[in-house]
C-alpha cells in the first residue's frame, strides 16, 4: 500500500501507476471537494497544495508525490471553513454554481502566501482557473478583502445575510 499525507493525516491507498492524484483523492480517499474539469491542467478545478504550492492534481501521478510531502485539499484548508478566504467568499457570495470554487480558493490561498497584498496584476497572473459562470470579479474582490484584513464592507456589495449582518 502506498501512502499520502493529506490534510495532516497519513492515508493508505491502492492505485495503479499513473493514476492522477486527483482520482486517488476522489475515488480512493473519498475527498470529492477537489474537482475534475479538464484532465489536462487547463482549468484548475483540481487545484490542491503540495507542500504549499498550488498544483493541478489531474496531471500529477499519485506515486510521484513524495511520502514526506504534505497535501492540502479544500477539505483541509481550515477546520470549519474559517480560512480568511472562505470567510470572504461567503461574505461576498462569490460562488455561482460552485464547481470551480474549490480550485479557485486553493489557488487564491497559495497566492496570498506568496503575495500577502496582491495587486490586480498579481491576481491576474496567479489565478488562471476557469469559471464559466463568471465569478471572476467577486473572486478578485474576495481576495482583496481577505488580504486587507477581512472587512467585506470594503467591497461595496451590501449583501444582507441571514443573521442580519451586512457585508
Amino acid at each position, binding site marked *: 500500500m502506498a501512502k499520502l499525507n493529506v490534510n495532516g493525516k497519513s492515508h493508505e491507498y491502492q492505485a495503479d501507476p499513473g493514476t492522477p492524484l486527483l482520482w486517488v483523492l476522489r475515488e480512493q480517499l473519498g475527498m470529492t471537494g477537489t474537482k475534475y474539469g479538464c*484532465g489536462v491542467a487547463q482549468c484548475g478545478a483540481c487545484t490542491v497544495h503540495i507542500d504549499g504550492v498550488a498544483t493541478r492534481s489531474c496531471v500529477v501521478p499519485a506515486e510521484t508525490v513524495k511520502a514526506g510531502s504534505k497535501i492540502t485539499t479544500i477539505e483541509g484548508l481550515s477546520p470549519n471553513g474559517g480560512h480568511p478566504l472562505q470567510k470572504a467568499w461567503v461574505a461576498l457570495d462569490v460562488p455561482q*454554481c460552485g464547481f470551480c470554487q474549490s480550485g479557485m480558493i486553493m489557488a487564491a490561498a497559495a497566492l496570498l502566501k506568496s503575495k500577502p497584498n496582491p495587486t490586480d496584476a498579481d491576481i*491576474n497572473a496567479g489565478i488562471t482557473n476557469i469559471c464559466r459562470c463568471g465569478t471572476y470579479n467577486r473572486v478578485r474582490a474576495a481576495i482583496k478583502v481577505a488580504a486587507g484584513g477581512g472587512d467585506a464592507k470594503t467591497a461595496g456589495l451590501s449583501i444582507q445575510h441571514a443573521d442580519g449582518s451586512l457585508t
Partner: protein
Amino acid sequence: MSAVESTVSGAGRRRFLKGSAAAAGSLVVSFHIPFVRDAEAQGVAAAPEVNAWVVVQPDDTVIIRIARSEMGQGSLTGLAQLCAEELECNWAKVRTEYPTPGQNLARNRVWGNFSTGGSRGIRESNEYVRKGGATARMMLLQAAADEWKVPVAECTVADSVITHAGSQRTTSYGKVAAAASKLTAPTEVKLKDPKDWKLIGKRLARLDTVDKTTGKQVFGMDLKLPGMLNAAIKDCPVFGGKVKSFDAAKIASRPGVKKVVKVGDSAVAVVADTWWHAKSALDALPIEWDEGPNAKASSATIAAMLKEGLDAPEAFVGNQAGDAKKAIADAPRKVEAVYSYPFQNHATMETMNATVKISTGAGGAIERCEVWCPTQNGEAALAAAAEAAGLKPAQCDVYKLNLGGGFGRRGAHDWLQQAVHIAKEFPGTPVKLIWSREEDMLHGKYHPITQCKMVAGLDAQGNVTGLHMRISGQSILAGLAPQNLQNGKDPVTFQGLNPGGAEGAFGYAVPNLLIDHAMRNPHVPPGFWRGVNLNHNAIYVESFIDEIAAATKQDPLALRRKMLAGSPKHLAVLNAVAEKAGWGKPAPDVDGQKVYRGLAQIMGFGSYVAACAEVSVSDAGDLKVHRIVAATDPGHAVNPQQIAAQVEGSFVYGLSAALFGGCTVKDGRIEQDNFSSYPVVQMQHMPKVEAILMPSGGFWGGVGEPTIAVAAPAVLNAIFAATGKRIRDLPLKNHSLKKA
C-alpha cells in the same frame, strides 16, 4: 397526512447521510431521497407539509420547496424569497428542498413546470410560488385563530410569530403547523402589493454558498452510492456515425474493468470499479467507427450551405411591416453587410454525468429506474429515463443534484439516456456515467450556427426607410424538438426581433421591415446555449445599426435614440448606460492607450438590456476590454445583488464567445476537444462591470441570459471605434486588429 408524507414514512425515510468530508467518509446517498432535508438529517422529527410549497418544523425551521433547478443562477434563493415574502416567515430559518419530478407526476403537477431555462425560473413561476406562500400563511394563521377561538382577521404575523393583540397571545408557525396541515386550503388568495414587499428586492445572501466554499457541496459527479460502479463513454466523433467494431478482449484484464457495453448504435462504454479505471481502459480500447456520410462535412461545406440561404427565395417571416424590398429598391442609398456566428460549446465546468440504478422483479423484468443527476428539467429527465428504460414515468424517479453549470446543456438528456442503457446491464447496481472533457466537447448541443445578410435602404437624410434582415441557418427546435415547430417554422429564431411580446420585441422603428429566416440545418446537433438566438440576433442588429451610423456619419447613440423613440423601455436602458459611461466625452486613457466606446441594446427573455463597452487596441493589435456599463430593466427585481452577479457572469459567457469561442468542423467532427483548443475568458481578460439595475415594475423579466447578447456587439462596436475595422464574424481571435 398528505400522500407524499405517507410515501416518505412508508419508504422508511431514508435520506442523505450528511457526508463527512473526512478521509474515509465518502459522500453516501441512500437509494430513496424523497426530500433532502437538513433538518431531518439532524434528527429533527419531520413535520407534515402545510401545503405543497411549505413545511414548517416544530423548531420554526421553514422548508420551502423549489421545483426549478439551481445551476449557479441563484433562483433557488430568489424563489425562496418570493414564497417567504407572502409566508411572512423568519428568513433566518428558511431552508430549501427539491421535490422530485416523480412526486410532481403523482400529485398532478402540483409544483408546475420544472424546466429551468430561457431565464424562466422566476418570471414564469413567481405568481404561483407567491400564492403557495400566501396560502400557507393563511392556513397557519387560521390554525392559531382556531386554537385561540378568535377571528382570524384579528391575528397578525411577522417573522413566523403569530400575535393576537386583543388577548396579548403569541404563538409561532412551528407550534401550529401540524394543525394547519389538516385545514382545507383557502381558494381566494390575495397577493401583496409590490410596495409592501419586504424580502423581494432585498440584496439577500444566497442560501447555498457555504458548502461551495468548503468542498462539501455534492455535485452529480461527486455522488457515491453503496456498491456503485463507474462508466466512461465514447460516442462516434462524427455525428450520425456508428460503432463498426471494438475489441473488448484487449482491455478485459485491465484492473477493475467489469464490462464493455455498446450503447445504442453509436457509442461504447467501459464499466469499472472506479472512473479512472473505466476511462483509462476506454482510452486503450480499440474502436472502429463507421463514420457515415457526415464525415465529408466541414466548416467550409456548412458555411456554403448557409450562404446559399442568404438569398434563397423562400424563408419564414418573423417580423414584417410595409414593403421592405420595394423601399430598399427605391432608396437612393443602400447599406449592406453579411455576418456570421459560429457553433459554441456550453463547456459547463462539471461535465455531463448521471447515476442510474435499475431494479428488476420476477423473471428479471425491469421494474424501476432511479436517476441521480444534475438536470435543468427534472420532468424532462424523468421522461427521458422512462423512455430509455422502457418503463412508465411512474416507475421511475429523478433525484436532482445541484448543477456544476447548465447554460442550457443540461436541458437535453442524451447523457442520461446513455447512463440508463448502461445501468440496464447491471440490474440492482447503481452505475455512474461521467463524460470526459473530451467527450463533453465533442458531443455538445451546440449554439446554432447562422449567417445574416442585412440590407438597409436610406433616404437622403440618412433615415432608414427599409430594412431586410435575412438569417440563414440552424433551428434549435428542428434539432431538439421538431414537434414544436409551427408549420415548419421555428419561432424561437426571432428572439429579440419580434413585433412584440416577452421573448423580445424589436425596438427600432423602421417603416418598411422584413425579418426572415431561411432554415438550413447542418448535421451538428444544436441546443439552447445561454442567451440562445438572442446572441447572434443582437450582434447582427446592433453591429448593423453602427454600420448605418458610420455610413451616414451619425452618432451611434443619436441614431439609436431616434429609431427607439417609440420604444421607451429599450431607450431607457440605452440612455442609462450612455450616461453612466460618459458617452460623448472622451474616455480617459488606460496605460497610455486611448479608450473607445461601443453601444448595444436588445430586449429578450422578458427584460430590456443595454451595454456600453470601453476597449483599447494597441498598435500591435492587442485588445483589452477595460470597463462595461450594463443596464437591465427586468420589471421586478427579486434579488439585486444576484442580478448583478448574473450580469457580470453574462459578460464572461458572452465575451468568451466573442473573443475565443467557436467550434469548427473537420471530417464531420468538432475540432476543439478541451480548454486548450477552446479557450475561455479568464481573470486576466475580465473587465470591470458596472451593473445598473432599473426595475420599472409591472412585469417579470429574466436576468440569466439577456445581457449575454449585448456583450459581443458592444465590444465589436467599440473595436470599430478604436480601429475602423468592422469584424463581422467571430471569434475575434481569428482576426488581426493590428494597425495597417
